[in-house]
């Protein structure tokens, strides 16, 4: 089952690459495959017992002398992350069909490949498998940005890939050391370690991926130069690989170092949260704001994870899904705005609400969920996170709560700058509203956000039990 979830998009990618289909058919085929993946995921959810730990496992020895095996399976929380992946990637493919760039076969194939790789990351139960998928994500991203990206894409891709690879190579070193010292690379079979260096290797990799201050140097350029749908996947889904890694590896396998470094990690995440929020407040365009807000949100999620109690961790999972959807929508909307006006810079935009009610409604809805208006799923996530971190120290919670105010400030600024205030030079009178197909792309995501807002418990109460027996984190009160 799990293997099928991974293989389906990869196989579809191969088919798309190899079959010489015309452009339209390629898009439809890719979309069809993606939808099938969503359906498959739904089937997986149907067969999942949220009361138990690892399920839907597939295990096959890969090479035995070092104890490496192909081992995939789902925990409750990873099922949600995978769901986020398939949904966002499907929507991204739909967007790509709409945007209709050149070299569709390559493009759609890469998107499908990326989808499969990300699902792989969220299911990996063996360190080397995890690493393989973790790195495999980079391959399509590099080309997607490098070939179809914006004018400064070369620098953006180089920075992005080298940054993240540097992090993940350290992780490879850590994996080697951890796996050899444990005599197995299986995440299920291995015990815990208290080696600080190994721990830090993993931590840095995920800190880059998330990113956490100060490892975010790649962030803005990558998000700004990507095609919108790639930016959506990148910020919405790929960054969640860090969540999975932190939860499944760092927290589960390094209880001692985690405890030791907990304050420091939370401090960095908090600094990042405030830092990114403040920068987002003055960022010059939609994408930069969304980029920095992503960073802020990831900081928050990391705070939640390292609260090390069930409140914070559940919150982090909820927030991961919420942020994934929100930032995906925001980037796609940015793309649509760019497609209409040629820019996402605030100085050239404004007044888009007048006469464009659909665009306005969508952006407004997403924006206010992004700023975690109470009652929204993002709020539910943030609330749990901050409630969790409160248990660690009230000061962290207070700073986090302050970040909520900052989030309100930068998101409202974004909304107003695009929709409100006098019309910008590039927002022409006859710039069209969101059309039917675009609506079909965005509405599922927005609807999902609203549904989750009505029922965030659907995720939060199913994110546990987290890790296999004996490795659960401490319980809340």
């Amino acid at each position: 089952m799990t293997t099928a979830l991974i293989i389906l998009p990869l196989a579809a990618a191969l088919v798309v690459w190899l079959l010489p289909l015309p452009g339209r058919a390629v898009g439809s085929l890719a979309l069809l495959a993606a939808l099938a993946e969503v359906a498959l995921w739904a089937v997986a959810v149907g067969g999942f017992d949220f009361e138990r730990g690892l399920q839907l496992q597939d295990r096959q020895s890969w090479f035995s002398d070092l104890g490496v095996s192909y081992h995939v399976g789902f925990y409750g929380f990873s099922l949600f992350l995978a769901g986020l992946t398939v949904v966002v990637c499907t929507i991204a493919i739909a967007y790509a069909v709409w945007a209709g760039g050149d070299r569709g076969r390559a493009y759609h194939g890469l998107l499908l490949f990326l989808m499969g790789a990300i699902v792989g990351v969220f299911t990996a139960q063996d360190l080397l498998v995890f690493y393989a998928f973790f790195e495999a994500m980079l391959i399509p991203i590099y080309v997607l940005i490098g070939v179809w990206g914006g004018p400064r894409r070369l620098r953006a891709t180089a920075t992005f890939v080298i940054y993240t690879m540097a992090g993940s190579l350290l992780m490879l070193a850590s994996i080697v050391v951890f796996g050899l010292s444990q005599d197995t690379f299986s995440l299920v079979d291995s015990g815990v370690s208290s080696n600080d260096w190994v721990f830090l290797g993993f931590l840095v990799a995920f800190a880059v991926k998330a990113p956490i201050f100060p490892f975010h140097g790649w962030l803005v350029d990558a998000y700004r130069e990507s095609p919108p749908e790639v930016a959506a996947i990148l910020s919405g889904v790929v960054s969640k690989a860090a969540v999975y890694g932190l939860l499944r590896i760092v927290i589960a396998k390094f209880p001692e170092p985690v405890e030791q470094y907990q304050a420091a990690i939370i401090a960095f995440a908090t600094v990042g949260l405030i830092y990114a929020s403040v920068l987002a407040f003055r960022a010059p365009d939609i994408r930069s704001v969304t980029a920095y807000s992503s960073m802020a949100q990831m900081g928050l999620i990391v705070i939640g994870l390292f609260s090390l109690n069930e409140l914070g961790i559940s919150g982090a999972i909820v927030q991961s899904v919420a942020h994934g959807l929100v930032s995906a929508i925001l980037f796609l909307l940015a793309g649509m705005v760019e497609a209409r006006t040629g820019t996402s810079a605030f100085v050239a935009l404004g007044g888009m609400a007048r006469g464009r009610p659909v665009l306005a409604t969508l952006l407004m809805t997403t924006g206010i969920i992004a700023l975690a208006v109470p009652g929204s799923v993002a709020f539910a996530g943030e609330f749990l996170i901050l409630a969790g971190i409160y248990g660690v120290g009230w000061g962290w919670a207070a700073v986090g709560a302050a970040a909520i105010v900052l989030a309100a400030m930068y998101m409202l600024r974004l909304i107003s700058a695009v929709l409100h205030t006098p019309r910008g030079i590039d927002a022409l009178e006859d710039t069209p509203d969101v059309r039917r197909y675009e609506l079909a792309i965005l509405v599922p995501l927005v609807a999902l956000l609203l549904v989750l807002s009505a029922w965030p418990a659907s995720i939060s109460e199913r994110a546990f039990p987290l890790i296999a027996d004996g490795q659960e984190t401490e319980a809340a009160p």
Partner: protein
Amino acid sequence: MIPTPKVDWLALAPTLALLGASGTALLGSVLVPWWMRRVFTAFVAFAGFITAGVFAAVVFDESADGRSLIAESFTRDRLGALAALIVAGAGALTVLVSWGENRRDHVGEYYALLAAAGAGMVFFVTASNLMTLFLGLEWFSIALYVLCAMDTHREESLESGLKYLIVGAFGSAVLLFGSALVYGATGEIGFSEIAAAGAGDDVLLLAGLAMLIAGLGFKASAAPFHMWTPDVYQGAPTSVTAFMSAATKVAALVLTLRLLVVGFPDQEHLWTVAIAVIAIVSLAVGNLAALVQRDVKRLLAYSSVSHAGFMLIAVAANNELGGRALLYYLIPYGAMSIGSFAVVAARERELQAPVTLENLGGLGWERPFLGAAMWVFMLGFMGMPLTGGLIGKFYVFSAAYEAGWWWLIVAGVIATAISLYYYLGIVRALYVRPAAALEPAVAGGSPPLDPLLHTAVFLSVGVTIGSFFFVQPLIDVARDAAASLPF
């Protein structure tokens, strides 16, 4: 009547097959009419490599217990057989790549020398005394000197040949003097006899060992003995470069491992550190210099220096896992090397000009297959998943960890991070740069499709990717091979 020693013909079969092929090709270059000379000699060489490979496989299968033969002239064991197999594979692919070169002069001699070089390497990896080591080394080296300089109408080719020859001969001389010192210290030339002589920390032996390491490091293009590599790789005919980059490295590294492990177990504390340092220097120099290259062959040459560094980490580990790592690493590495040079060769023939990052532009879109293949090779060099490069690095790091060399892991990590830049630079050139600025191929359009070269590339891709998925069988083989050495 002198009692001639009993010869184990099976052990020599791979070498003899290639020698036979070489001889046949040589005869063919004289006797066969010119119009079918190319077909004949190429086929003979190809068949020779394949036969050698088959024999090597048989030897591998039948040599669970290694033993040295003819007064420790050479060894029949799985290590040598596996290395021979890899060399034979590389050679066969090289023949496929060479076909489309449309060499008009000395085509028969070309294939004969190629087979001869292959034979030399296949023998070299089994060598087990200093004399056969030196002879085997010279055997394939001399053939390679000639191959490098064979395009006598190109100055680069001549320059590369002369540089290779002189620097190579210098390196051999050093190696030879080192051999003499080791012989002087122990009175023996067989590897295991040297170890058995128990010379301990005799300075003669140590000085000799240092010179031997330098000489072999030269062949493996390890820094600081690597400086010929970029020049020679760049100037030599591309198919020869492909062969050198894959096969020579296999031969040199495997023999380095054999020599050090079998011959100098007592000096382990010295040579492991030395090899480790050389590995690090290679990683640093290779990767850094590659960053600023524009010529793709030269870039790949530096990359091969850095990979020599990686594989030397496995040697430095001096444990069974290291042997496994080295032997595993060589398989995808050989495929990636040959494959990437094959792609360069294809582009070169298309453009009739040296391939630079600039005129690689747009290859990925114009020739989707070659572009995708090159992409795979670059991913492999980077150690990205879906290629054996990842597993190779993984094993190398594992070996280093088991040896306690955590700083070698760190060095490897940093080096890989740097290497990303130029490997991705190639990918970027393939796909990102517009082909607009491109000079079109010579009048008459692109040359006809070269099915053999494409086959070679396809096989290389297959090995590169396959070695990722089917690690277990390969690692079993590598383990069996490494088990031949007395770790």
